[in-house]
């Protein structure tokens, strides 16, 4: 953004390559400028987005404090009291359920495709799994409302309460619309992304590593557990965090199945709300400017959490892709 005024050296270097050419240099310069302009537009948009969210959240930050807002639970638009603790917990718990349910399935799929499936099955299976990621989230939401929620209400609630009712996590009220429903829907939605990234990471494990273990008399199972997964572990953690990031930010499907309660209880069968679902639910009806600001404040928190999680995941995946992860201990 400050290329021309602030850093002439950088600017010179940027156009130097094109200028030094004898012919066709005008076209190169124009192309470079156009490409640069588009890049700067995106950066400017991102910057303005961050500014808008921060600016919109300022009244709420001034009223409740950035961290005070996150640690109080009262959310009462009528009395102008806003605290985000319950939706932060709702977001974290529903995402955590999703990751716990999705990781074994996704890793199983990734290992099946890379190590076990006959070559003729690999492509089709991978394609179908990848396609799951392309289904719009509202379609997942519809399926969740029409199939998953009734199934939980009719078939899962009672046995869960009967057998696991002694834990604080399964009890009444239990309607179907619940943290558990949100977690399951999110799990289905993040399986494709985790398995796709994990698959690429597992493909990158050198054959020499696997053969080294095979030659010691290891079974295919032992090769996977003792060589493939340890070698790929950092990247797989990255893949899981990418899935977690998607789960944290997911809005539509969650809003449709979580029940949008104004409280958080440890009971997974009870309705709850997430940061994203709360914004989606209330933004249109927000009456006061403080209410709007509080919702934008929620958006700011959500954005920061998502950014941190995403950056962590990219760094982990990137460190695997660029070098043998295992060399570092």
């Amino acid at each position, binding site marked *: 953004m400050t290329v021309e005024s602030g850093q002439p050296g950088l600017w010179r270097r940027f156009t130097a390559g094109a200028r030094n050419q004898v012919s066709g240099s005008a076209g190169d310069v124009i192309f470079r400028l156009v490409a640069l302009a588009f890049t700067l537009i995106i950066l400017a948009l991102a910057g303005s987005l961050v500014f808008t969210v921060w600016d919109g959240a300022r009244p709420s930050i001034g009223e409740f404090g950035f961290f005070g807002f996150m640690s109080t639970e009262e959310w009462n638009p009528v009395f102008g009291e806003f605290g985000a603790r319950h939706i932060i917990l709702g977001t974290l718990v529903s995402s955590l359920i999703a990751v716990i349910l999705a990781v074994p399935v996704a890793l199983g799929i990734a290992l099946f495709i890379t*190590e*076990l499936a*006959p*070559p003729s099955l690999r492509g089709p299976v991978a394609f179908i799994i990848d396609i799951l990621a392309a289904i719009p989230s509202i379609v997942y939401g519809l399926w969740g409302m029409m199939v998953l929620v009734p199934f939980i209400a009719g078939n899962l609630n009672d046995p869960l309460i009967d057998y696991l009712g002694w834990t604080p996590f399964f009890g009444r009220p239990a309607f179907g619309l619940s943290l558990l429903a949100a977690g399951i829907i999110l799990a289905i939605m993040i399986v494709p992304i985790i398995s796709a990234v994990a698959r690429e990471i597992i493909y990158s494990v*050198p054959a*020499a*590593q696997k*053969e*080294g*273990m*095979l*030659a*010691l*008399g*290891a*079974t*295919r199972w*032992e090769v996977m557990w*003792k*060589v493939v997964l*340890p*070698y790929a*572990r950092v990247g797989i953690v990255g893949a899981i965090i990418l899935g977690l990031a998607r789960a944290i930010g997911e809005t539509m499907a969650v809003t449709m199945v979580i029940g949008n309660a104004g409280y958080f209880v440890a009971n997974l069968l009870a309705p709850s709300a997430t940061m994203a679902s709360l914004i989606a639910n209330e933004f249109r009806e927000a009456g006061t400017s403080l209410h709007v600001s509080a919702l934008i404040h929620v958006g700011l928190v959500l954005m920061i959490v998502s950014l941190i999680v995403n950056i962590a995941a990219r760094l982990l995946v990137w460190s695997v892709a660029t070098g*043998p*992860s*295992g*060399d570092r*201990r």
Partner: protein
Amino acid sequence: MTQHDTSTATKEREVSGTSATEHPAVQASSPGQSHVAHVESTAPGSLRVDDLEAYYGSFRAVSPVSMAIEGRKVTAIIGPSGCGKSTFIRCLNRMHETARGAHIRGHIYLDGEDINGPKVDPVVIRRKIGMVFQKPNPFPTMSIYDNVAAGLKINGIKSKERSMDEIVEQALRQAALWDEVKDKLKQAGTALSGGQQQRLCIARALAVEPEVLLMDEPCSALDPIATLAIEDLIRQLAPQVTIVIVTHNMQQASRVSDRTAFFMMNAQRSGELVEYDTTAKVFTNPADKRTDDYVTGRFG
């Protein structure tokens, strides 16, 4: 994959329809391969290869090879690039079949037992016939100790009297690495030099007490000093374990081996065994002109 390949290999054997008892003597399968000296070995860890062919899909990478590999001796496999040396040696512990579409015909016997028999688990064979690869491949997520113990941990310790620590120490001593690493057993195996890493891989293979140790160009990624250390090691190990070493370094073959097999690519781009005899004979007075040309450096 393994299951699939195994069943394919089984079918191939049924098609070829021969068994050990029908071919008591090792026969040269074509007139062009008449320079294969017969060895009858009774030492443990001896291998007999009967009309072995190796395929990648429909491509025959190794034409019928028959040879007897003496137990507790060093056998070198030499030949120009692409002559099927590595493919051949990978058949000997059933690593060949782990490649996509790869399968074999013919038979390989370890101390009289058909290693490709229908009831034989390749995993069991690989415990008896260890392998060291071209590039050192220690497991990067494991310490030096855990690298050596890796095979023991999956297979269980054979002898009840000795502890894991003792076996690891013995394997590292056998691989002439103990003195260099005894104070840093908990460090990562990948922190060692290339030559040390390769000796670590040898120790890893020895720890499970194999009958045979296959080495696929074990020195090709190493400097001359590290190479000499590995060669010394091979000589020392020979009385305890049968060694089959693939090398395209003829000096190495002449230095370390008791017997040498010379492979060459034939007109169908398939590897075949040209000559197999004592190392002294192959290098000083070969029976086949092609062997003579190769060992005197006229080609290859």
